[in-house]
């Protein structure tokens, strides 16, 4: 439904994406990983049709969450989630209530979005994407600003969402979250896709991409909830 074939994006003298081919697949959670400036956000924006010479997808089927979503006005959490119904042009309340519940911000529904924490705001913005009930989710850093437990919550939610047949694409800096929850890891460097691998095989390439060693670490670590 959406995707890029041999796509190149230039911004003035800089080439941000070079000859990128990528298609989100239904039922798959894909993590886009790479160093700062690798082109992850640009790839997501190109998929969302927000760059020149890209196709604008059907907004009822594709939801996009930008990196630093803020509300200019003091809307309530519920009003923010309701914006997700704009593509459908209806005022149905069940999808909005379900989205608020899924993203764990039900209790904050009538609180103004500028009076809650950064992590809670992030989840309210995610609820807006869920309220659209799209086929494809394009999420830029959905776990930024979230505490470790909330990050696992959100990744678990995205895992289950992909399992219901949706295509979920997330930009992630947390490689361990990507390896733990994603089906597929796409590694980007300097605007190129370096590797497109099943998550369980991606660790050596990911480590090489960041120039970090990898191996077993005997230190006890936080684990995701059961």
């Amino acid at each position, binding site marked *: 439904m959406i995707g890029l074939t041999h796509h190149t994006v230039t911004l003035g003298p800089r080439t941000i994406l070079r000859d990128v081919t990528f298609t989100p697949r239904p039922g798959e959670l894909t993590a886009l990983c790479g160093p700062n400036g690798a082109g992850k956000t640009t790839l997501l*924006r190109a998929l*969302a*049709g*927000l760059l020149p010479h890209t196709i*604008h997808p059907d*907004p*009822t089927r*594709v*939801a*996009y*969450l*930008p990196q630093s*979503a*803020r*509300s*200019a*006005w*003091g*809307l*309530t959490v519920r*009003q*923010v989630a309701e*914006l*997700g119904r*704009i*593509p459908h*042009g209806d005022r149905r309340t069940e999808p909005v209530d379900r989205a608020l519940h899924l993203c764990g911000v039900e209790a904050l529904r009538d609180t*103004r979005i500028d009076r809650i924490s950064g992590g809670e705001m992030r989840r309210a*913005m995610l609820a*807006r994407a869920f309220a*659209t009930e799209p086929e494809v989710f394009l999420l830029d850093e959905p776990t930024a600003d979230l505490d470790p437990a909330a990050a696992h919550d959100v990744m678990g939610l995205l895992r289950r969402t992909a399992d219901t047949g949706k295509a979920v694409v997330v930009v992630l800096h947390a490689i361990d979250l990507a390896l733990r929850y994603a089906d597929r890891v796409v590694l980007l460097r300097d605007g190129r896709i370096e590797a497109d691998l099943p998550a369980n095989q991606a660790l050596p390439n990911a480590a090489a991409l960041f120039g970090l060693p990898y191996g077993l670490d005997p230190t006890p670590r936080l684990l995701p909830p059961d």
Partner: protein
Amino acid sequence: MIGRLAVVLVGASALSLLIGDGFIGTAPWPVITDIRLPRILLAVLVGGGLGLSGAVLQGVLRNPLADPGLLGVTGSAGLGAVVVFYWGLAASFAPALPLGGLAGAVAGTACLMLFAGRTPSGPSLILAGVAVSAVAGALLTLALTLAPNPFALAEVTFWLLGGLENRTLFHVALAAPPILLGAAILLRLGPGLDALSLGEDTAASLGVPVARTLMLAAAGTALAAGAGASVAGGIGFVGLVVPHLLRARMGERPSAILPAAFLAGACLLLAADTLLRLLPWVLPLSQSPPLGALTALFGTPFLVAIARRMAP
């Protein structure tokens, strides 16, 4: 809220019909229909146009400081009127003044669209508006310094400060169509404004045509506020303060305040103008003060109160 504002507006209009310059009571029928009625209708139309375009501009630009004057269209209307004054057309043909204002507003809008380009974003629209304002302001100052006689200068300055006295049904007929058309355009932008509160990227991903929404907001403002300025001069502050007053009571969702902003702007300007007519009653004044000054004096305490409540 909308119902209450409508009741207040109708009541205030009726009361205002009974208020003359410095006295309260009925008057001969022609005084009511030819002097007071046009003034009240203009206060409602101009105030409503300013309030609504202020609410839409603040929403579309995501900026609580936006005001219809920001786009330079009201300044261009002033320039058009001054040019008419300069050539002495106003003395020989009274309707020349508002017509000149309207021509100025149209020219200003054309420049705005030209400067902003075909696919504007919020910041590029603001910058284009600032450019139009600057050019209109500069030309206006130039025209004022070149004014043929000091009497014309005083008259122009007074007109620029804004007011509704000595307006006729001709002014109403001239201003009503563009203001109502502008209001109709602006009232349809509600869902787009709501989506834009999360930024232009998110709005575009929700299927909102961002550049088109900005263009329609600019065009609607040009009609609603530009036509108002061409008959009433530069009346400031209504467009800035009305959205804030409503947000404090109706919540901050941009679309929620749109129809109320028209009614509240109308109420505010009508109240200010009615008070202006009562002023000679309490203060011996040789000339009634400009309406624009009164709206600013009226509005500031509300704005300060809101700003204080915003502070953490």
